[in-house]
């Protein structure tokens, strides 16, 4: 997600996605890991790790084994992060999903996407370091958390009231 799309510094505690009107209502993963980090480029590099600013890639979710996600048509489903992630509001936010196709993986949740621009999402086989699919669409998502409040002084607050 681009900084211009997020618009704020935010402590991300969970992320939500909206299922479409297509497909089944559950998807089971043998394992699911999610990472977040900061990046500078508005288009993703084929080498996954090259997209992160050094030191910012953080694992925020580990299902620790089998996980089943469920959502009805046009319903939002939420993944609560194990570790909240602090997005500074500067540079872009990278969200990385990793899952094996091992048993008992089953089903797919078809979620709403939108046209975001060239190379905004990349995909590759589990365990690979580089992507072999490049997408212009990204998921319609919600970042749920706490916004940073602007630090202010009593003087400026009084001045703003005077302007009202």
């Amino acid at each position, binding site marked *: 997600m681009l900084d211009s799309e997020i618009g704020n510094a935010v402590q991300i505690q969970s992320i939500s996605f909206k299922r479409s009107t297509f*497909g089944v209502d559950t*998807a089971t993963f043998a394992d699911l890991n999610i990472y977040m980090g900061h990046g500078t480029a508005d288009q993703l590099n084929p080498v996954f790790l090259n997209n992160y600013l050094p030191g910012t890639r953080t694992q925020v979710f580990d299902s620790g084994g089998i996980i089943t996600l469920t959502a009805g048509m046009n319903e939002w489903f939420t993944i609560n992060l194990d570790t909240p992630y602090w997005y500074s509001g500067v540079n872009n936010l990278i969200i990385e999903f990793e899952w094996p196709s091992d048993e008992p993986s089953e089903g797919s*949740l078809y979620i709403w*996407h939108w046209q975001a621009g060239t190379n905004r999402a990349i995909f590759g086989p589990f365990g690979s370091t580089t992507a072999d699919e490049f997408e212009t669409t990204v998921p319609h998502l919600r970042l749920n958390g706490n916004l940073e*409040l602007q630090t202010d002084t009593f003087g400026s607050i009084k001045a703003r009231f005077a302007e009202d």
Partner: protein
Amino acid sequence: MRLASMLCAVLLGSSLAATIDIGEDQLFWSKPFCGD
């Protein structure tokens, strides 16, 4: 009331719970939620 609220926010350094909604319902794909 507004002043009190703003002052409390500044004094306590509290944060504001929020949801940031990014995108639209345009196209649907399984990625990245393809279990199999």
